[in-house]
């Protein structure tokens, strides 16, 4: 049993190492959401005074959770494209030619993304705080937000890994990215649902990401709210479970197709 744990740990470590050692691959996914955060909080700060806008101190306070989720999304897609790279360059074969547990091949990447998502979320919170962000839920609220982000990162990583394992192509993984990206935008993440109208509002309301970010946001703009947090966390967990089922099926399919 301890050998299996050591394998999970070693493969997670490798996943993190390879992410951190590719600055070109990992800096844009961290910086882009940050830039977006800086630009829109400068541009839209006064919208917070619009009637119907959720009560928040600043647009930054409203936006921060969307930024965190966006960052987790970007980084996890990059991690999943590494899974495809492993298949393309044969490292995957090295893994399956060893007596390692089949699931740890996947779990290593997913765990790596979980850890990375957690750290990345804290990074955004710290940067935000430097620009005057206050989190009403305090330190516990921050922990709550970053835990959801970590779970969501693991969820996206496993979903995208399912795709990576099925196609075995890193291009295909990056090509599927716009799909998740639009899911991110057709939501209440960057603008409050209360100010939306028509089909967009309907779409945003259906989108589970809206509810996840709203649940996180509640901790930031309102204060600790266990109910909201649970709803956010369970949506993230849902992504993770679906992703894991699909990825395990894809892995089984690839191993059987051999």
């Amino acid at each position, binding site marked *: 049993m301890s050998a299996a744990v050591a394998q999970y740990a070693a493969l997670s470590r*490798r996943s993190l190492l390879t992410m951190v050692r590719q600055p070109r691959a990992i800096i844009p996914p961290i910086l882009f959401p940050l830039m977006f955060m800086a630009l829109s909080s400068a541009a839209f700060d006064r919208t917070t005074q619009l009637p119907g806008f959720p009560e928040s101190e600043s647009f930054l306070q409203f936006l921060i959770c969307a930024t965190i989720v966006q960052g987790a999304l970007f980084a996890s897609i990059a991690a999943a494209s590494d899974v495809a790279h492993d298949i393309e360059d044969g490292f995957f074969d090295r893994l399956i030619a060893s007596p390692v547990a089949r699931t740890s091949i996947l779990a290593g990447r997913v765990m790596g993304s979980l850890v990375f998502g957690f750290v990345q979320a804290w990074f955004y919170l710290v940067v935000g705080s430097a620009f005057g962000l206050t989190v009403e839920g305090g330190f516990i609220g921050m922990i709550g937000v970053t835990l959801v982000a970590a779970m969501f990162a693991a969820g996206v990583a496993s979903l995208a890994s399912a795709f990576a394992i099925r196609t075995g192509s890193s291009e295909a993984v990056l090509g599927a990215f716009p799909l998740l990206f639009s899911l991110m935008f057709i939501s209440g993440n960057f603008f409050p649902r209360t100010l939306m109208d028509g089909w967009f509002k309907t779409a945003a309301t259906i989108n589970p990401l809206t509810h996840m970010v709203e649940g996180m946001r509640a901790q930031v703009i309102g204060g600790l709210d266990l109910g909201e947090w649970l709803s956010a966390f369970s949506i993230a967990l849902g992504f993770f479970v679906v992703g894991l089922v699909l990825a395990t099926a894809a892995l089984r399919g690839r191993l059987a197709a*051999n």
Partner: protein
Amino acid sequence: MQGTDGHVVAEGLTRHFGTIEAVAGIDLLMRPGEVFGFLGPNGAGKSTTVRMLTTLLRPTSGRAWVAGHDIVAEADAVRRSIGVALQDAAIDPLMTGRELLALQAVLHGIPSSASRGRGQTLLEMVGLTGAADRRVGTYSGGMRRRLDLALSLIHEPQVLFLDEPTTGLDPNSRFALWDEVRKLNRERGTTVFLTTQYMEEADTLAGRVAIIDGGRIVAEGTPEQLKAQVGVPTLQIVIGHGEDSLGAESILMRFGEPAPAPAGAVAVRLEGGASAIASVVRALDEAKVPVEALDLHMPTLDDVFQEATGRRLEGAAESQPLEQAPNPQP
């Protein structure tokens, strides 16, 4: 046939990809401690065979045992007993040699206390101690292959599979890797299954060779047996300018059939084998025939391949520059 007496046994091993029959029912018997060469051109089915024997690919039909374990039913036991270095030296360029060795050890369930020392020994063995803490992305092709070899040995496997270990390497790196494989086999008794498209490699390294073409084994035996089957060596002499070639020819013909030779040279197929050279030289000397050059062409595995398939082995020309002298073919 079960597989404990022979380390690698295959019976009618077959693999189809759609309608293509990549491996068409091969039988193998490899004994413990031997270096077995699997020689064939690109696309002959070498890698597919290795992928089946290393549990990466399931056979369409047929069976095989590696170190006594069925490759399908006991795949995990097979994985524990084998070391695998695949063709592309699939090594994560972002990690260092030492990190990869540690990872490989963990994958094989070796506790880190044991793996550190073993990793160091292997790094010394393949001459990579200086580069151990550099990222693999900075390694040369030869260094990658040597690291790959070290990686495949971390758990001290009984059987080592090397899929085209020297393809794409420069001659020096190739010779260095050959030395490692020889040493490994000699000192640890590791059984080595080696695929190659270079006949010289099979000839120098392998105790026994199977030649595969179109998914079928077309010849099998020790390199010496195989070469002896296709014929005898050819001896060609270049005689002094303006000398009488007829005298030389009549002497040579006492030792075998004439063979085609360029102008100014005479050639003979030595019926008595290479050991007849001494007698030929003595006879020429007695008859005072001035010999300027003497060239012995031994049959090669390429000749064996040609005999079996009617074609030349791909890439043979690059791998055997020494044999490319203008020799008549037997």
